[in-house]
């Protein structure tokens, strides 16, 4: 890694936390092999705003999310069209390095995926080693990240214990802390609470609300109440039979839930299908 980046990270450590980046999907379409699963998605995800992606299973929410930090291309048969802009720069262009794109746009997965053989502290700091960065005070970074993820008080006395011993909800917050430790501008979350109990879910929702002014957050969720509690912007995805998924409607969360323009949106948010 180059020297300027190291300086940058040290500077980011000293300065107040980043206020997030603006992420914008422009006419994004996706294919798996010959099958088109997503068509013409335009969504602007603003800084300081939590964007929720909702819709029935299989309509392409995860696929869209994975195009936003270039995880989509890890599937061998996957292709895409359109572009994704981070603060106005195309993340699929030659201007940004792939690893830099993924560092700046973090991701929390549906299934918690800490590195089980590493200790809790090593998990949080794993991104540093992976991205070849150095910080002056590693312990401080571990503590700050765990605090921001709302996990510090529960693990402060066992930072050296293996991460595999944490509960599901704790593991998920550890994954959030791990993502935050590399100071991302955007955090993508794919149904982060779907495998968790109600208490852990509430803790993560609180975490999201605390983080929202520091990082741009995009969350996929099947839980309508959760979308209303945590998000300010909401996009409804739907795929008709044998057709690719599309965004049917998007707007302020309030309006999507109280006064949707499209009858299909109304049906979905009121639990009449999906």
């Amino acid at each position, binding site marked *: 890694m180059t020297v300027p980046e190291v300086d940058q990270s040290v500077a980011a450590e000293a300065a107040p936390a980043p206020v997030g980046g603006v992420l914008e999907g422009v006419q994004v379409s996706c294919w798996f092999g010959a099958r088109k699963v997503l068509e013409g998605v335009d969504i602007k995800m603003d800084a300081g705003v939590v964007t929720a992606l909702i819709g029935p299973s299989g309509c392409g929410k995860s696929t869209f999310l994975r195009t936003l930090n270039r995880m989509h291309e890890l599937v061998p048969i996957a292709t895409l069209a359109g572009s994704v802009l981070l603060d106005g720069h195309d993340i699929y262009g030659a201007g940004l390095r792939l690893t830099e794109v993924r560092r700046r746009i973090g991701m929390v997965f549906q299934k918690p995926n800490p590195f089980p*053989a590493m200790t809790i502290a090593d998990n949080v700091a794993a991104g540093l080693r992976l991205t070849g960065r150095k910080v002056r005070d590693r312990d401080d970074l571990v503590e700050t990240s765990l605090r921001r993820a709302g996990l510090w008080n529960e693990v402060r006395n066992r930072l050296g214990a293996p991460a595999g011993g944490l509960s599901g909800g704790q593991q998920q917050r550890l994954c959030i802390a791990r993502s935050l430790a590399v100071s991302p501008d955007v955090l993508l979350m794919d149904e982060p609470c779907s495998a968790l109990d109600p208490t852990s879910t509430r803790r993560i929702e609180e975490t999201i609300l605390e983080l929202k002014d520091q990082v741009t957050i995009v969350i996929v969720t099947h839980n309508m109440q959760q979308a209303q509690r945590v998000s300010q912007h909401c996009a409804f995805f739907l795929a008709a039979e044998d057709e690719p998924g599309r965004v049917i409607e998007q707007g302020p969360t309030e309006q999507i839930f109280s006064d949707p323009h499209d009858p299909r949106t109304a049906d979905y948010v009121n639990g009449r299908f999906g």
Partner: protein
Amino acid sequence: MRTTGPEGSVTSDVPEAGPRAEEPRKLEARLTDADRFYRAFVAAGAGTTLVLITLIGLFLLTGAWPALKTSGFSFLTTLTWAPDGEPPKFGVAAMMFGTFVSAAVAMLITVPIAVCTALFINEYAPRAVRRSLTSLVDLMAAIPSLIFAIWGLFFLVPLLAPIEDWAVAQFHGWLPLAEASATGGSLFNAGLIIACMAIPITTSIIREVLAQAPRHECEGALALGGTRWGMISSVILPFGRSGIVGGSMLGLGRALGETLAATLILSIAFEIKPRILENGGITVASGIAIEFRDAQELGLSALMAAGLALFLVTFAINLLAALVVNRSPAGARA
């Protein structure tokens, strides 16, 4: 907790719990007939293996007894091999030394190459050639060692001769490893050929294990901005540690017992010397193969003793490997 029979009498088989249950109770379960049958079947298989190993060990021990009684402790320290001489004088020291050195050379070459090849096939090779590379490696694992030995003797060793001679000319005098009066039939070359034999099977096993690394953990590493190498070092290698040890042990087993390569390559010499590039050496396996024809009564027994020593060493190394595997954090993962 008491169940009551139809007539109101107590017919429970629920054990009486003490006032405070402080001791764990005994657990019992009634198995189905099918379960019992398969358990017996599988146990019989495991038992056969154990009996076989014990029988082999006993056979070697009884065969080796006369020789061991004659030589006593000097069996471990003597270099020369003249069991049918007058007086008999023999020991495994030189053979063991040669076995360890050639095996060490072989493993030092095999393990890095096998791990790199496995990682290349799994993580770097273009998808189109991955399948063919995998089958190629598996195919190479099936080539008889005789082919490798002949190829090594007539192609690789002559090819390397100028390089080895150059290395000796450059470094002799201050690096005992590189001193040699003549090169070619050395322990180093034997180890090299053994490595060629061990690489395919070791690679095949390690590749298979590394391919099982959990994909969602790999994605977690990449999503943090990790490079491919970062993902390999933080997820794939820790996950595959026990598999790498296991695959290497199979390779090492092959290296310790390899007879043909050592017999063909080595210029026979019963001695211990650090000059591994120099002609001359002997291993237990090649020693047994070479001395077998001319062995008389005590000679045969002495060869059995050498075999027993190799048997025990192999056993010990595998036990050690099992310990390493069980101790590793990857082995402890849920």
